């Protein structure tokens, strides 16, 4: 009797769920599908949706990460939200689609294109080709490609890129200035991803500029691309290994993998660590005992400024360099000697005016 009753309960649930899902179906979507149909026929046309909606809509497509990855997808989305606030847009004017499969970039952009969005932000160098194609096919829509270098400038596509090698260089200067043992380390995501390599090359060059004989133990994650940024255990183990070999400053650059390294260093008394991409003082609180700074790419203001420019009609295509630099020292403000701070300031100035070269990419 008991099983009999629960079965019926389940059947009822099933039926009610189906009914709920089915009932209002014809009413609601009609307006939508009508709007979608003409856009389908003429993808490049902007007349129908744009004309009746004078408001400003911003869409974002992630790479195969998520918008809460505490790394660049999240930063780019926060940039969109900042622009939304700055421009006084409503919550409905901004939307994101998280990509499941690298082959879906074009489809996901297509959702925004068909719906007549004004600005589409695509995040990550992997979307570069798909973004260029979409920009070519939709000259009336403005595209912002985060981390996408533009070989040929398109008027409606801005590639927001960063000198990772320069912020890596500053991290290297800081690390080499703070080490007692003369050995520093870097724990990195895969060398299949160019920005990671740039961070590392800059880091080594910066460290050598302070002390040509410094010993830098830098280790790339050996795994495939889908593993390399989500392996905190490997990051922690690799950091531990470097510490055993005498490293007393560790640079963790590689998503959650790097975070694992930072957290490992934080458990050792008197060692320092340096984070990456964002100010990891905020994103990885567990690393605060060792985190003297982070080698940042300022994606949030970069994206927000480009969207504002698009809104105000000042948008220009091609490569746009976002600010790169070190995060604040937070609790280590008093620990870091004034001459090191001065050195970092002059180094930053030298990198900016070109008198100092990181040697990467030549």
């Amino acid at each position, binding site marked *: 009797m008991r*099983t009999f009753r629960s*079965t019926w309960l*389940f059947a009822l*649930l*099933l039926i009610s*769920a*189906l009914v*709920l*899902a089915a009932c*209002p*179906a014809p009413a*609601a*979507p009609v307006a*939508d*599908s009508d709007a*979608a*149909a003409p856009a*389908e026929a003429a*993808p490049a046309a902007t007349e129908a949706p744009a004309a009746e909606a004078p408001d400003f809509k911003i869409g974002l497509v992630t*790479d*195969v990460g998520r918008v809460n990855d505490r790394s660049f997808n999240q930063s780019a989305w926060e940039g969109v939200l900042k622009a939304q606030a700055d421009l006084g847009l409503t919550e409905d004017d901004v*939307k*994101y*689609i*998280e990509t*499941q*499969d*690298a*082959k*879906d970039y*074009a*489809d*996901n952009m*297509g*959702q*925004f294109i068909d*719906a007549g969005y004004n600005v589409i932000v695509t995040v990550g*160098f*992997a979307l570069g080709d798909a973004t260029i194609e979409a920009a070519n*096919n939709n000259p009336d829509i403005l595209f912002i490609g985060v981390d996408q*270098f533009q070989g040929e400038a398109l008027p409606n596509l801005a590639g927001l890129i960063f000198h990772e090698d320069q912020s890596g260089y500053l991290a290297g200067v800081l690390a080499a200035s703070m080490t007692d043992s003369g050995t520093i380390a870097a724990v990195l995501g*895969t*060398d*299949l*991803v*160019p920005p990671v*390599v*740039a961070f590392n*090359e800059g880091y080594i060059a910066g460290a050598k500029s302070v002390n040509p004989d410094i010993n830098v133990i830098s280790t790339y994650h*050996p*795994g*495939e*691309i*889908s593993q390399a940024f989500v392996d905190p255990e490997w990051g922690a183990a690799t950091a531990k290994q470097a510490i055993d070999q005498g490293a007393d400053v560790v640079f963790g650059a590689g998503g959650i993998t790097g975070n694992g390294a930072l957290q490992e260093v934080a458990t050792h008394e008197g060692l320092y660590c340096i984070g990456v991409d964002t100010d990891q003082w905020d994103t990885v609180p567990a690393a605060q005992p060792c985190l003297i700074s982070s080698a940042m790419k300022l994606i949030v203001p970069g994206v927000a400024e480009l969207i504002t420019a698009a809104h105000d009609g000042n948008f220009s295509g091609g490569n746009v360099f976002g600010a790169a630099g070190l995060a604040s020292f937070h609790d280590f403000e008093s620990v870091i000697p004034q001459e090191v701070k001065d050195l970092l300031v002059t180094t930053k100035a030298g990198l900016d005016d070109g008198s100092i070269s990181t040697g990467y*990419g030549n």
Partner: protein
Amino acid sequence: MATASPALPSPGRYRRIFRGLLIPVLALLTALVAGALVMHLSGDNAQDAYIGLFKGAFGSAKGWAATIRKMIPFILTGLSVAVAFKAGLFNIGASGQFVMGTVFSVFIGINFEGLPMAIHLPLAIVFGIVGGALWGAIPGILKVYTGAHEVIVTIMLNYVAALFAGWTVYAGGSQGQTPGPLWDRTAGPISETPDVLASARLPYLFDPSYRIHYGVFIALAAVVFIWWLIYKTTIGFEIRTVGQNMKAARYAGIRVNWTVILTMGIAGGLAGLAGAVETLGLNHKFAPEFGGQVGFDGITIALLGQTHPFGVVLSSLLFGALDAGASKMQFDSRVSADIIQIIQALVLAFVAAPMIIRALYRIKRLPTESESTSLGTSWGGS
């Protein structure tokens, strides 16, 4: 279960088809209801999500195009896993075989400029099949001669294939290190191959913006071929006999060792063909982010399709629709695409453990039906 011995009184063709469809359909419905509950609990609107999902997959020509485009690799990797199941082998290596097929076909595709398409394209496809088949045969050979279980070996070979493929396109050149042999020298620091030459690309059907290519016919031809091979040929009979009882097969004079290696080779060839078709038809190059995830989806698809070639087509349609609709679902309802993975995982759980579905809906077993779907003899003895 579709392989029920012909000697027993058949319950009738349509009835058998109905019984075969019953569990998968109920599994899907249950997964959809459970998915709706999850969305409800996390404060999302399940109704908007499912409407968006359906519209995204079937609501427009572009939606249909995306669904069909996604079916192509699902069909081929699903067939790969299904064929292995027929011989009682669990091929978890479709992912690695897919990647090896990709690398082999892209090697042909980016070289040999000037070859006519009639030679270049088939050559690239055949190399993809060969690459996957060789990679699939390795666990078969190891199983036969050393007793190494194919599940363990195929899983490990997945990693080897992924790392090998990554090495072939490694952009070390920009850092003064040895680059991979297939790396595009014009790509700067980006690790990828050059584009496949036009003479080795599968042409698009319809308008290029739909991105449907002739691979769809290759996939359907493979379905018919595998159906014929499994159910209409001696080799197929041997494969099925080995799958049902290896010892009896040996006693009956079937070359069991050869059949195991051959089956793994065929399975690998199908996954390799999937990699070749995806590369030559859609991606037109290899980069590490085009990984072999679709090879793992093949396991679910084969199980959901009851390891029958036509069932694989149906379950590929379902999975293709779920993936194709995810984009519009997110756009319309702001529900995270993760829900798609939850639904797919639940479908797998319910299909792999049909007891749950039987208990839930009080379905009795027919005497001709065995319980666990097809995982067969693989773990027990060999």
